[in-house]
Structure formats: C-alpha cells, structure tokens
C-alpha cells in the first residue's frame, strides 16, 4: 500500500509532528514523534510475524514506552488487541484465555506466549477493553479504530490540549480513561510523561514538578487523595487544568475540586463516560463548576444524549423527568464479547444504553439520579455484582451480593465459622478491595421475592442492621 492510500488516523504518520516530544521517560530520555514513528514501524514488522491474521492477542499493559509502542503498532496493523491489567492474577488470565481463545499473550516485559488457539475475529475490531479491570471477567468491549479516533478528536475539541502540553500517566493505560489521555495527546501531537510511579509516591510528585506537567487527571478516589495531601497548598505554575471522570463525586470531593480550581486559578473539567463509548460521553464546561457540579453537563462534539422512558422506551423531552440515559455517536462500541463466538458476530450497537438514570435541566444540562444496572464502584474500580457472585461460587455456599458505591454487601448461608473472614480475605487478595469497603453478613436463608428472584433490598436491610450494632 502506498503512503497516500493508507488510512489516516491519530496513530498514523506520527512523524508529521517531527522532532516534537511525544513521550518523556522518567530517566530524562525524550522520544520525539519522528523517532516514535520509527519504533512503531519496527514493532509493526515484529507483530506481523508473531500474530496470525484474524487472531486475538492480549497485552499486559504497563506504562512503559515499549508497551505503548506495541499498542500503537497493533492498531496500525489492524490486529485485535485486548488490553489487560499487569496485575491480573494467573487465575483471571487463564479464565480469559479459555473464554476468548486468546492466541498470543504479550507480557509487560515484551516476552510473548503462544497459546495455540486460533480465531476469526471480525476485521473492524481493533481494540478490546475489559469492563472490570482486575476481576478477569471475560466480558469485554469491542472498539474500532474509528471509535478511538473519533473520541480522541472530540476530547481534544473540548479540552484545551495544545501541542506544548505535557500530561502525566496518573491513571493506568489499560483503563479507558487513562488510555483516552494517551490517545487525545497523540491526536494533538502533544507530550506525555510515561511514569509508573503511583500517585501516592514522592517520586510521582517530584516528576510532576520536574517535568512541568500541564494537566492532572483523576477518578473521585484521586481527588479524595489530593484532598488528604492538601494539594491546594502546593505551587504548580505549570499546571493548566484538571480533569475528573470515572464516577460521580461526593459533595465533599466536588467542593474540593472547586477549591483546587479556585486556588490554582485554572479550570477543572468534570467528565462522564463509559468504556462502552470508548471513554467520554459528556463534560461539564468549567465555568459551570460552581453551580452545577452535580451534573454530567453536555454531550461531547459529534455525540447525542437522550433520555428514554423506563417503561415505554419513548424519548423524554420535558425537564426533570427521569429515564434511562442513552447515547449515540461515532465512539459507541461494536458490542460486548464474553466468549470467542461473540468476536466474529457482525452486529453493531447503534444506541448505547448507559444503565444510568438521568434527567435534563431546563438549561440543557444532564444530571444522573440513579443506576439501573447491578454495577458498583469501589474506589473508582467498576465491579459487576453478578461477576462477584460467580467468583464467590468457589466457597460452595448459597450467597448473594448487593451494594452501592464504596460498599460491597455479601450475604451467605451456612459454611465455616470464619467464612465471612475468608470471603473478605479472598476479595482483597484477588480484587484488591480494602476490607473497609466490604460487609459480609450471615443469613438464615437467601431472601427471595414472590417471583423467586433475590430480594436485594432485604439483604441491604440485614447489612444495615449489622453495621449499626
């Protein structure tokens, strides 16, 4: 294929930004766009040799230059790549491998494991992201290169990203929000410091100052952490704006974002999105932060948000009437894949049902008021309660899960005396959930509704009773 005939997206022709830095490394090394182009070309050749056409490969995605180059090269080559947490347990990895028939595992250190599986992945599937990072649930989101390109483009229209910017990897790159920062900066020819230093480390903040980082991004948990660090008392003259996504802020956290924005005299962007929409769906224009921090704001460029009646599915246009929040746009995924068969289907989601319940204000802003799906977030980490029930089957007792953000409730019947402790310990080991966010209650029987389904409200009551005594 000649250069002119190549599809031209944010991962192509990286050398058009010349000697401008694409990546800074903690060592001080600077990777220019021209050099990045060479690294990617070389990696494309290597991947072409090891990944059979039509098969699925998986990358254990650490925040290193080599891993980023692999990601970009796979996108250019058009080989479907599943991004995994480098902390995924062996158990989770094996489960994924079998379910999705992954042909090639690329470890974070660059070593490659061939599994012998073959596949026939649909050609338009470029990237797969897990719906819950660390549990090893096979349910993944299938995205196209166009999805990624469109979302990077939309993001760089509403965020003030400029060529001279330097972002920092405060979020993991296998997570859609972290990845969207990488993609939008690549789209704009801006720079990113690739650091693995955890946000709660001296190293991170030293690098933050030393590399004169221009934007800081975090999920609600990070803002809680920034608050505890009393970040507002620091001086960062290079910092130009904050972004937040990954869940609704509590009132205290929202107030703290306002404090940061006022103290540094820079804008803060509250954003809303889902992995199912590549990353971003809506954002709150920063001048509305003081009065509307409880809103998700307005839709991103090229997208459309609508609210549908929960019973009739009709579009709701009146203000303050709640319904399911739905989204249409060029960044909506192809669909989910939970097993190998899903990877070769031809269907495509045209309208994304977010599972969130929302209303619209008379001024046009959207506000989330509830959630339909059985999903909770613990410190920003998304958990499907049904997945947790499946994982806990190994304890061989009847059990059920319920919860809300930052509280996972598990009810069980029978078992050993220390079963509650065993369950808490297991969840901490396998999913890194701190025990203070878990409440395990012993029940006489699993509470059921008249229709035979689990009565989760009754489980909630039992948990509340045991919390208060």
């Amino acid at each position, binding site marked *: 294929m000649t250069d002119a005939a190549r599809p031209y997206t944010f991962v192509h022709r990286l050398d058009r930004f010349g000697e401008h830095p694409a990546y800074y490394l903690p060592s001080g090394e600077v990777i220019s766009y021209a050099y990045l182009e060479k690294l990617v070309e070389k990696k494309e050749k290597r991947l072409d040799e090891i990944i059979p056409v039509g098969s699925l490969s998986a990358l254990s995605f650490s925040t290193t230059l080599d891993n980023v180059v692999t990601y970009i090269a796979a996108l250019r080559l058009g080989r479907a790549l599943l991004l995994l947490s480098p902390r995924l347990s062996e158990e989770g990895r094996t489960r994924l491998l079998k379910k999705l028939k992954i042909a090639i595992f690329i470890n974070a250190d660059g070593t490659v494991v061939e599994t012998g599986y073959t596949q026939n992945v649909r050609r338009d599937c470029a990237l797969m992201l897990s719906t819950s990072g660390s549990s090893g649930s096979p349910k993944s989101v299938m995205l196209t290169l166009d999805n990624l390109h469109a979302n990077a483009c939309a993001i760089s229209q509403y965020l003030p990203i400029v060529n001279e910017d330097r972002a920092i990897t405060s979020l993991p790159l296998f997570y859609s929000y972290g990845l969207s920062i990488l993609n939008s900066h690549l789209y704009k020819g801006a720079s990113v410091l690739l650091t693995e230093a955890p946000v709660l*480390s001296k190293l991170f903040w030293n690098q933050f100052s030393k590399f004169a980082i221009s934007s800081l991004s975090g999920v609600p948990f990070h803002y809680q952490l920034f608050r505890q660090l009393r970040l507002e008392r*620091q001086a960062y003259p290079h910092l130009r704006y904050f972004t937040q996504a990954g869940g609704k802020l509590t009132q205290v956290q929202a107030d703290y974002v306002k404090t940061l924005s006022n103290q540094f005299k820079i804008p803060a962007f509250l954003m809303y999105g889902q992995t199912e929409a590549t990353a971003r769906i809506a954002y709150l224009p920063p001048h509305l932060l003081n009065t509307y921090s409880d809103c998700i704001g307005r839709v991103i460029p090229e997208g459309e948000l609508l609210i549908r009646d929960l019973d009739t599915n009709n579009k709701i246009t009146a203000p303050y009437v709640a319904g399911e929040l739905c989204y249409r746009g060029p960044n909506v995924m192809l669909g989910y894949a939970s097993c190998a068969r899903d990877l070769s289907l031809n269907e495509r989601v045209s309208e994304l049902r977010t599972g969130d319940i929302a209303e619209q204000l008379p001024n046009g802003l959207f506000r989330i008021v509830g959630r339909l799906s059985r999903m909770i977030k613990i410190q920003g980490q998304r958990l499907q309660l049904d997945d947790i029930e499946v994982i806990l089957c190994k304890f061989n007792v009847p059990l059920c899960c319920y919860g809300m953000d930052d509280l996972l409730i598990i009810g069980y019947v029978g078992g050993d005396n220390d079963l509650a402790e065993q369950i808490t310990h297991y969840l*901490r080991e396998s999913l890194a959930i*701190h025990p203070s966010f878990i409440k395990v209650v012993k029940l006489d029987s699993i509470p059921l509704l008249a229709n035979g389904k689990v009565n989760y409200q009754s489980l909630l009551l039992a948990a509340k009773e045991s919390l208060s005594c």
Partner: protein
Amino acid sequence: MSNEPTNNEKLISSFATSLVIPESQVSESLAYNTINEWDSTAHMLLIAELENTFNVMLDTDDIIDLSSVNKAKEILAKHGITF
C-alpha cells in the same frame, strides 16, 4: 494512668487497623507497596488514623514520605510525639 497505651503501641495498632493485618506483622521495616495490604487506599486510611490517634496534622511531604513504620516514627517525632 498506668494502663494508657504507649505511643509505640498506639502506632502499631493504627497500622494494624488501617492495613487490616495482625499487629505481629507490624515491624519497623514494614514499607509501603511491599505488601499487598499497604496500597494507596490503605495508605489514606492510615494517614487519617495516625492524624486522629496522635492529634496531628500531617503536610503533603509528610504524607508521601511516610513509606515505612520507621519513617512514620520519624515524621511523628517532628510533630512532638516521642517513642
């Protein structure tokens, strides 16, 4: 009161509570990110616990410097807590 726990006992108990590990595991050399239990969530709970227990207000550098039990003693000592 002679039964009042010593500052060292209070420190060990703060670590055990926020990291949810047995007190016997809280040694001087215990350090951030060396055990799975001491992750960023636990670290935040630990800081809050130490601030309440010893009635001190740690600053940004203290919080990110507090990377081991030993270091915690040093930092608390700066705030007038003796061990």
